[in-house]
C-alpha cells in the first residue's frame, strides 16, 4: 500500500486541541511526555540501585511507584495511537529520518546527542513541548509561553549549524 498524505496541519491541530481540552475536562490537567520518560528512568534505576535513587534529591521525588502515574499510561496510549495511525497510513517501516546529505551513522549520533541535550533541558524546565509549551500555552501559564519562545529561539539559533543534517 502506498503511503498516504499527511492530514492538514489545521485539522490535526484542532484534533490535538480537543484532545487536550478533554484531558482538562476529565482530569484537570493537560498532556505530557517527558515526565513519563523520567519515571521510566527512575524505575530502571530503582531496579539496579534503589539506595542511590533514594539518596538523590531529584530522583527521590519519583522514587515511590514511579510507573503508577497518569503520564506513564498516557505515553502507552501515545504508542498505541501512533502505531495505529501509522499503520492506517501505511507509514510503518524501519527507516532513519534525515536529509540527503548525512550518513546514517552520523544521523544516529546526532539523534543520541540531541536526545541527551533535550532530556536535560526538559528536566530543567519541568516539561517539554507537550507538557509545558502546549499545556502551559493553553492554560496561559507565563512559564509555558516563555518556555515556548525560548525553545523556538534555541532551535532557530542552532539550525544553521546542523543544516547538513536536514537539507
Amino acid at each position, binding site marked *: 500500500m502506498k503511503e498516504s498524505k499527511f492530514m492538514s496541519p489545521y485539522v490535526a491541530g484542532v484534533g490535538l486541541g480537543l484532545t487536550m481540552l478533554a484531558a482538562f475536562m476529565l482530569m484537570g490537567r493537560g498532556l505530557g511526555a517527558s515526565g513519563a520518560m523520567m519515571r521510566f528512568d527512575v524505575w530502571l534505576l530503582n531496579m539496579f540501585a534503589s539506595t542511590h535513587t533514594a539518596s538523590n534529591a531529584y530522583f527521590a521525588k519519583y522514587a515511590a511507584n514511579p510507573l503508577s502515574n497518569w503520564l506513564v*499510561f498516557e505515553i502507552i496510549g501515545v504508542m*498505541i495511537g501512533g*502505531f*495505529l495511525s501509522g*499503520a*492506517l497510513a*501505511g507509514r510503518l517501516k524501519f527507516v532513519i529520518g534525515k536529509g540527503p546529505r548525512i550518513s546514517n551513522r552520523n544521523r544516529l549520533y546526532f539523534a543520541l546527542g540531541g536526545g541527551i541535550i533535550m532530556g536535560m533541558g526538559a528536566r530543567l524546565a519541568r516539561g517539554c513541548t507537550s507538557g509545558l509549551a502546549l499545556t502551559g500555552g493553553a492554560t496561559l501559564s507565563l512559564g509555558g509561553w516563555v518556555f515556548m519562545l525560548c525553545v523556538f529561539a534555541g532551535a532557530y539559533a542552532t539550525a544553521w549549524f546542523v543544516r547538513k543534517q536536514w537539507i
Partner: protein
Amino acid sequence: MQELTITSGRMNPGIDPVLHAWGWEIPVYLFLGGLAAGLLFFSAYFYLKGKENTFVTAVKTAPMFVPVILGIGLGALFLDLSHKLYFWRLYTTIRLESPMSWGAWTLMFIFPLSVLWSATFLKDVFPSWECKIPFVARFIEWLKKKRTWMAYGLILFSAVLGMYTGILLSAFNARPFWNTSILGPLFLISGFSTGAAFILLMSKDEEERKMFSRIDMVLIVIELFLIVHLFMGFLASTQVHVEAAQLFLGGPYTAVFWTFVAGLGLVVPLLAEFMEFRGVHIPVKIPALLVLLGGLILRFIVVDAGQSSRWLYKFMQ
C-alpha cells in the same frame, strides 16, 4: 485510632500470615498450559482436516515445542508445591469432583501423547535427521498409522486442559473473584488465542498466517465478550462479588488490567489484525507478541486479584 475487633482467625495476618500464597509459578504454569493446549488443538484439528501440508507450521512444527512448554510449566508448578516429594500422591486417587485431580490426570495423558505426536512429525520438520535405533524407528512408523486416533485424543484432552487452567481457580470457592463459571471458558479461549498467536509468530507461509490471523480475531472477539460477561455477572451477584469486580472497575487492578490485558493484549491486536485483513500492511509479529504478552499478564492479574478478593473482613485490607 482505629479499633479492630477480631472475632475470627480467618484471614487474619497475625494468625494466617500467608494471604498471598501464590507467586509467579502458578500464573506461568496456567499460561504455558493454555498455550500448549492451543497448539495441540490446532495441530490435531488441522491434521484431521487434511491440511498437514498446507498449514505446516501449525500441524508439524508447533507440536515440537509443546513437550518443552509443558515441561517448563510443570517445572514451575513443581517449584510451587510445598511438599515436593509427595506430588505423586495426586496419582493415587481419582476424584471426579476435584479439578486438581482432573488436571493431574489430563496432564498424565497429554504430556506423553504430545511427545509421541511430535515424534511422528520429526522427520518432516528435520529432513536430515535419521533415527539410528531400529526399534524406535519402527515404533514411530507404527505410530504414524495411528495419527488419526491420536488427533482425536489430543482434541479432547487439549480442550480439557484449556478449561482446567481456569476451572482450577474457580474451584476455590473462598475467593469471590475466582468463583465464577466464566473463568474456565475464558482461559480456554485465551489459551487457544495465545496458541494461534504462537503459530503466527513462527509461520512463514502467507496463507497459514492469514488463516491464523483470522482465527485469532474470532477468538479475541469471544474473549472480549466473555470478559464483559464476567464483569456483568459479578455486578449482578452478591455484595462480595460486586466488590471483587470493583477491583477492576476503579480499584487497584483497573489500570493494569484495562491497559495491558484488554487494551494492548486484545483490542490493539484485534484492530491490527483487522487492518491487516483489510489490506493494510502491518508486521504480523506485533499483534502476535501482544496477544502472548496479554495472555500472560491476564493470568498474573487474575491469580493475584483472586487472592485479594475476600468474602469476609474487607476491613483487614
